[in-house]
């Protein structure tokens, strides 16, 4: 049988899967391992020489306090954003699935911020914070006001606000799908058994929507942890580098300060964080399947 020959299998696989597999290996797998190699060199970004330096980059990464500060900042930013995004998204989803008029209109409307990339959104909001908010504050108090973006805490607040604004509409769509997948008769049965609306929601609907919660929480966590575009356009890390998040620090370390090896070593820490988040998601997702 010609179909059992290895050469047949390989040629069939390459015919169908070749282009995708080759491109995938070329931009993901190969760079990933080449990146591991780069962490042991002190490449300057220009020359062909990549001197071997052992663990120096890892030592530099560990000693880089600005990096660990940016990671801590990213952690705080992500936790606050994820909590707020999910609360807002859940409430919006509840309201746009309750049977009111114009549900689809509202769903489509809340999603609009997700259509536009972080760079453009960041500049739009920069204008809002620097001009509109200042004008409103000055009109309300009749005194001079500085922009929120000019203080470290204000800048972090702005990043959180814009992230919540952007992601809430997206997560809302996932929660809407969750609400719609819950069998209404279960909720009705609970209410006949004497649950009020709140109790039915808490004990019946929300547990059945477990998969949506797992999905939204992990999706928003990864998005927030890796944010770069918005950080670049809205705050650029200012004031005084006090709003530099982890992804921006890695970028700057590599491409601005030209410490490619150290930047790559620091990026690997981000990879580990992402891998842990991914494994937790699989774990919680699986656990949910059994419970349901």
């Amino acid at each position, binding site marked *: 049988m010609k179909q059992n020959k290895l050469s047949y299998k390989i040629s069939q696989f390459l015919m169908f899967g070749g282009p*995708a597999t080759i491109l995938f290996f070329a931009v993901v797998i190969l760079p990933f391992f080449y990146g591991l190699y780069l962490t042991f060199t002190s490449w300057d970004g220009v020359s062909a020489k990549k001197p071997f330096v052992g663990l120096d980059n890892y030592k530099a990464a560990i000693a880089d306090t600005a990096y660990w500060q940016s990671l801590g900042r990213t952690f705080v930013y992500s936790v606050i954003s994820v909590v707020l995004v999910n609360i807002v998204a859940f409430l919006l989803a509840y309201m746009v699935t*309750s049977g009111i008029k114009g549900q689809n209109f509202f769903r489509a409307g809340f999603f609009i911020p997700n*259509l536009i990339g972080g760079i453009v959104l960041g*500049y*739009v909001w920069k*204008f809002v914070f620097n001009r509109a908010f200042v004008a409103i504050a000055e009109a309300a108090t009749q005194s001079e006001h500085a922009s929120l973006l000019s203080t470290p805490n204000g800048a972090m607040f702005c990043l959180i606000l814009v992230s919540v604004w952007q992601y809430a*509409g997206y997560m809302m769509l996932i929660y809407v799908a969750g609400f719609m997948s819950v069998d209404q008769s279960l909720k009705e049965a609970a209410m006949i058994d004497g649950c009020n609306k709140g109790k039915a929601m808490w004990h019946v609907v929300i547990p059945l929507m477990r998969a949506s919660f797992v999905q939204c929480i992990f999706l928003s966590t990864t998005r927030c942890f*890796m944010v770069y575009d918005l950080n670049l356009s809205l705050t650029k890390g200012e004031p005084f580098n006090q709003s530099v998040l982890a992804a921006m620090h890695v970028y700057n370390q590599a491409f601005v300060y030209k410490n490619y090896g150290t930047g790559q070593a620091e990026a690997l820490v981000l990879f580990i964080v992402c891998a842990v988040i991914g494994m937790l998601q699989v774990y919680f997702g699986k656990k949910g399947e059994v419970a349901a």
Partner: protein
Amino acid sequence: MEGQVSTRTKVLHALMIVVLTIVLLLFIAPFILVVINVFKTKADINTEPLALIGKHGFTLDNFPRAMEKMNFFTVFGNSVVITVSATILTILFSAMCAYVIVRNPSWRFGGAVFALMVASMVIPFQVLMVPLVSVYGGLLNVLNSRITLILMHTGFSVSLAVFMFHGAIKTNIPNELEEAASIDGCSKWRTFWTIVFPLLKPTVATVAIIDAMAFWNDYLLPSLVLGRRELYTIPIATQIFYGTYSNDIGLIMAALLLAMLPILILYLFLQRYIVEGVTSGAVKG
């Protein structure tokens, strides 16, 4: 009793509509602010950013100046070419790849490639950007080309797309159809394109929407690949433009509106499909 409940529900619904309307207005307020300021002069924007019309009246001046300085038509064209080509390649290559993997579960390398693709989805781009620049810029010197960017976009997006096509083929396409075609003497290649691929339309739509939006809005990868002005995409051009003209706020408003307009217009027409596509993509991915 019955009447009471429905009045209560009616009041509740009215209340929710009011709340949702207020929240929606707050949601789109930033865009409205851009729209009202784009028709003002620079001086009016600085003194009264919230006024509907400035003291110096209505002006259309900001648009032609921003278009010219941003090189809008070239930049827009680049974005369209890159987004469309990368989306088409992703769909074709991923559907083909998923097909061969699903239909030959005993082939070890197919399973291995699929497992690697799924696992790779947790790799953040930050881990790959330095080696990418090092290999494709330093060693091979193929950066500054739209084709390189298109192929890279495709390479990054095939893993999720293969995963989605894999699920769709496995659950929705019965093997019997292909067996019948095979008995009739149809080659695997023809069977795939004439029988399987047309049945994958819903997944094609989902992948197209998710990837096209991602490619259109991506900044980091294109900014690393495209270093020449005539190759810029909209996000890169916006970023450079802001850096150069940040004092001329009227120009900035026009540039931001131009950057947002194409996708907002598209959303007006394809809104239903986009909302559906994003939802099913997010739930499956």
